[in-house]
């Protein structure tokens, strides 16, 4: 339906803390490890520990240590690996942001399904123009009486 037929428009958001809380180790550690293995196979990435909201990865036998706690990352590296470590940090930050977006979309869909059941009549992934920026979004349609 064209937007010019809408009666009302409402904008809302969850907090950053809410988004970060979605990045638990059980859903994040495998995704990050696979990404590191694909991007940095020569550094032999390993998942050292994963529990709750904390994960620790080693690359290059521990010369680079990547720690994710509550969705936030830190990296420690030897002097020789500093540049590489910063590149990894930037890439994994983008990966976590995308993963949080996916998890949030799924959380909204689950909540709507639980509450509205068959009145949730469609769910689609779409591209939108958000103030000049092309973004991927999910659109859920409710048909209410």
């Amino acid at each position: 339906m064209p937007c010019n037929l809408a009666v009302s428009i409402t904008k809302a958001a969850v907090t950053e803390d809410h988004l970060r809380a979605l990045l638990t180790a059980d859903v994040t550690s495998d995704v990050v490890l696979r990404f590191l293995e694909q991007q940095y196979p020569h550094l032999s990435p390993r998942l050292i520990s994963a529990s709750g909201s904390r994960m620790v990865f080693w690359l290059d036998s521990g010369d680079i240590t990547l720690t994710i706690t509550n969705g936030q990352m830190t990296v420690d590296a030897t002097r020789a690996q500093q540049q590489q470590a910063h590149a990894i940090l930037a890439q994994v930050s983008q990966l976590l942001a995308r993963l949080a977006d996916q998890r949030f979309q799924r959380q909204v869909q689950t909540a709507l399904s639980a509450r509205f059941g068959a009145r949730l009549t469609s769910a689609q992934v779409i591209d939108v123009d958000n103030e000049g920026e092309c973004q991927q979004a999910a659109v859920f349609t409710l048909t209410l009486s």
Partner: protein
Amino acid sequence: MQVRLIVLPQGKIQIFVDDGTFEEAVNATRAILAELACQGVPMELIGDIEQHRDGVSHVHVLQEARHDH
């Protein structure tokens, strides 16, 4: 009444109520936000629930990528 919830990156949503009166649209929007909160998705309003008119910025659909449901 048809309501569309567009879930955007960084935990943002935009809710479009496509028919009914503005008062009905406001009530439906508030009810949906309350239900989301009950289901563990506490959304904070960014500004007011706005009556659609020229000048209200909002997302525009460019392309449907795929159906999930």
